[in-house]
């Protein structure tokens, strides 16, 4: 009891210290926030009414973002199957799965936008660097999920098939896969949803999709058009979330 009281006291002190440090060393001028109130209102005012004439750009931009997310997810799945097997305790020895897991953690640690910028530099503008960036970035998480799906299966049915004389591939197909398939389906759908959300902004760095229009309209002060694109993005995210939620419930 006493130890817990001490722990929460320490946590409170650390938290207060962190806030004070941030306030003291950052140039947060509350006066500026107050004085720029009218300007913020002005910017918001210029977003209304949203300009509906950009429908064509919205549709083509959204379609491209969707294509980037689909192909990026496909690429991540193709990379995650072998890497997931290598990162699994069940299928690989420690000398293999430990370094592979470290590699996946490193991949996860690199922000998508950074990968996209590097890829734009490497392969040029357009959706291709976006697809490569999404596939690379998503693999860090998806391969880890796949390895956990493999490690989460019950061992007894595998032993039973081994006892019956089934080889390693047949054991994978009939004892391991049926157990992990629903988990893999759920994880893949979840990662697709994340890929779609994250690829919305890829256009800002020139890696294709609807983000390109957001950047163009904001930079050229066409806030009414930017507002239309923003609404389209929100609608798309909400729709895909509802759709994926319904899909995920089927794999339980």
């Amino acid at each position, binding site marked *: 009891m006493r130890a817990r009281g001490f722990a929460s006291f320490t946590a409170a002190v650390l938290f207060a210290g962190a806030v004070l440090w941030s306030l003291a060393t950052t140039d947060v001028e509350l006066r500026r926030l107050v004085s720029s109130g009218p300007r913020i209102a002005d910017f918001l005012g210029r977003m209304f009414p949203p300009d509906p004439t950009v429908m064509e750009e919205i549709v083509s931009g959204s379609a491209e973002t969707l294509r980037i997310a689909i192909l990026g997810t496909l690429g991540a799945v193709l990379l995650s199957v072998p890497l997931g097997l290598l990162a699994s305790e069940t299928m690989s020895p420690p000398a293999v799965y430990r370094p592979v897991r470290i590699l996946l953690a490193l991949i996860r640690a690199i922000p998508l936008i950074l990968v996209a910028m590097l890829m734009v530099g490497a392969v040029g503008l357009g959706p291709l660097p976006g697809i490569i960036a999404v596939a690379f970035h998503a693999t860090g998480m998806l391969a880890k999920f796949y390895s956990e799906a493999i490690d989460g299966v019950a061992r*007894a049915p595998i032993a*039973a098939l081994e006892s*019956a004389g*089934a*080889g390693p591939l047949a054991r994978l*197909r*009939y004892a391991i896969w049926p157990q992990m398939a*629903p988990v893999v389906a759920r994880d893949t759908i979840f990662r697709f949803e994340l890929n779609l959300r994250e690829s919305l902004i890829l256009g800002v760095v020139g890696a294709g999709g609807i983000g390109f229009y957001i950047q163009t309209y904001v930079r050229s002060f066409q806030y009414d058009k930017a507002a239309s694109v923003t609404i389209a993005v929100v609608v798309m995210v909400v729709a895909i979330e509802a759709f994926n939620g319904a899909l995920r419930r089927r794999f339980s």
Partner: protein
Amino acid sequence: MTAAAQIDDVSFAHSGADTSALEHVSLSLPVGEIVALFGPSGAGKTTLLTLLDGRLRHWCGRVSILGASLDPDHPPLRACRADTGFVFQEFALVERSNVLRNVLNGRLGRMSPIRAFFGTPRERDLQVAKTALADCGIADLEDRRVDSLSGGQRQRVSIARCLAQEPRLILADEPVSSLDPTRAAEVLTLLTEAALVRGATVVFSSHQPDLARRFAQRIVGMRDGRVAFDLPTSELSEAAMADLYRDAAQMPAISLRVAS
């Protein structure tokens, strides 16, 4: 006639354990016999059955199963593994697959690796699987998913899978310990009758003396990793069986097992 299984002076300890799971065990099992392994928890029954199934590694001694000697460091060939069928205590079925698929899994060792992987059973595989289902009284359940079945039904599926292997030696690890007495007797009846029809040798473990006496022609008593007795059922007294459970030292082990 060669023995279904011949064990000479086998010892084995689980890695990290202080005591041996098997100590200088020697046993000979004639073809076609029904043998009960009897004894308290921790006596080494499961370890002995796992050894006979070729799934134990790093033991010492000599073992030959159906005329082929086992290598302590390598798993037996697929055909040899298919010749010995194993009925698991906790069924070890693939819960999300249907009953027929689970029983066909018992045929995987009888197919070429390519056919096994793509899972296209031959006419004969289907026929053997369906006969096994019928013998276990669950022909009507073949399309049901295993996770929708009761414990008794699952154990029948597990036995059907074992029979689908067409094993010459059937090993059953406490096959009825999770069933009520009536179901337990039913399941052991169908297991022993199916084995009799197929000319297979059966070794089942149990700590229920009445079931061991009723179904086995011979009872091997085990205690602390050793064979305490090995007698035809008719020559074995109930007192000798009860004696395996004599000291109170066994009690904590049993209660721990229940708690976990």
